[in-house]
């Protein structure tokens, strides 16, 4: 099962089996945004509570595969309590990790390490996903949904 260990790291399976911040928030005041992966029918619902410039609470609902669910869980743990600007930075870094690797897969060189794994903490566990290009959409689903939620929160 060579290669699968890169995809299904222990942290990922742990977040899949025991997802963090699972549930709902009352909306309003929280923003409720749905994300959809038409490829596999995965659905994620992100509830994000922004107070002032801070993400004070976040909950994840919906259903999906281990990658989309664990990514959402890891994301929720990573952004909770952060400022909106920090959360956006993290989204950018995470998506860069997905893209950098996607690009480097096409060349025959090794993996370009443009993203500092330190900045990602546990999220770095999702790095292996990029070796499985069709699954990248699963990993980024909740992040795109969160971006939309933050946009809507800031738009008032």
């Amino acid at each position, binding site marked *: 099962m060579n290669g*699968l260990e890169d995809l299904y790291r222990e942290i990922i399976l742990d977040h899949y089996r025991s997802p963090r911040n699972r549930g709902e928030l009352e909306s309003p005041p929280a923003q409720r945004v749905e994300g959809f992966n038409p490829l*596999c029918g995965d659905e994620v619902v992100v509830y994000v509570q922004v107070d002032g410039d801070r993400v004070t609470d976040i909950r994840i609902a919906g259903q999906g595969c281990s990658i989309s669910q664990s990514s959402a869980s890891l994301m929720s743990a990573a952004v909770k309590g952060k400022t909106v600007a920090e959360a956006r930075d993290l989204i950018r870094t995470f998506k860069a990790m997905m893209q950098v690797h996607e690009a480097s897969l096409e060349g025959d060189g090794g993996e370009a390490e443009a993203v500092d794994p330190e900045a990602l903490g546990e999220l770095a566990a999702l790095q292996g996903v990029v070796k499985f290009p069709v699954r990248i959409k699963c990993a980024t689903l909740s992040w795109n949904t969160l971006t939309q939620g933050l946009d809507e929160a800031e738009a008032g």
Partner: protein
Amino acid sequence: MAELTVEETAPAALAPLDVAALKPDFPVLNQEVHGRRLVYLDSAASSQHPRAVLEAMDRYYETTHANVHRGVYALAEEADRLYEDARRSVGRFIGAPDPTTEVIFTKNATESVNLVAASWGRKHLHEGDVVLLTEMEHHANLVPWLMLAEEQGVELRWLGVGDDYRLDLAELEELVTGVKLVACSAMSNVLGTITPFAEIAAVAHRAGALVLADGAQSVPHLPTDVQAMGCDFLVFSGHKMLGPTGIGVLWARRELLEEMPPFLGGGGMIRDVRRDGFTTNELPWKFEAGTPPIAEAVGLGAAVRYLEAIGMDRVRAHEVELTAYAQGALAGRFGEKVTIFGPEGTDGRGGVLSLAFGDVHPHDLAQVLDQSGVCVRAGHHCAKPLMRRLGVNATARASLYLYNDEEDVDALVDALAEADTLFG
């Protein structure tokens, strides 16, 4: 019930398929992925090609290619002959009474349904007219009708799927009242259910409705006879029956095709064009605007001849046996952990096995199986209303064809066991 299954139509002693002898005909199957033997279990999405098909297409390109219907030189005449030969082969394969006029080449089954909806539908269906669909349809046989519903105010009714994964025929008589068209799959691409199409057609005809059969899954796997089925329209795709992509078929009764307005306009489909109008060509070319997929038609012709040489009753018998083996192997190894969304047994069902496996998401399942070289499809299989009816977002679907054998099923079972270890 007049189901066209082999149990009723085939002679008692059918020589079984020799899959080991037949596998080498399919070059693509002879490879490894991730260091494991390729086990292709996704033929319901698209099937693989025997050498005979690849060679027919190569030969066409190497010796014959020219545009059809326009040239007087030998090469063009030969292209024309091959293209029309393919039409005759396909017509014979489905029992068409008049292949040379009733078999229309399209891009795929989807385009064929769209042709019927846009041409027959726009002419005959107006505000308040009713089309009866079923809950197990593929989007190809849903969205064109939803589009007509939006455009022309056509009403859609739905024949339900019972807990036995078969159509709720008890409701049919009532639902069919006042209906103009019943558009129904002959075999479900998710459940494997073979619908009693001839019976449905008889009820529909008594109520004054026409019937369209979505044969995308049935034509590749079952003996097909449009007259015995009572079809008015039949659609299917070449790429699910050993043929290439880019070619599909609409068969319809000649009277219907004759009075239907053209679908796409352009070269080939006209008799005359003036500044103020045009007249249409004869059948079947009236519905084949522009340069058709000639090599693909040639490939499809070779595919149906390959299937005919084997015999569709033997293909069906093989799949019945292998489906039973798979049902037994899955239940035997995994018990309650595995759910097969489809009829029990093999009566009135084909070799499509849509699975739920414990709590493992179908997408993850397909990924783990891939590492063992086992190709299955995970997703909604373009049948979202049916998925809602089943109460799931997705299934992992293994589908069988004539080149699959017990070893392939064993590989599936072993790979599922690995998924169980990883996620269990």
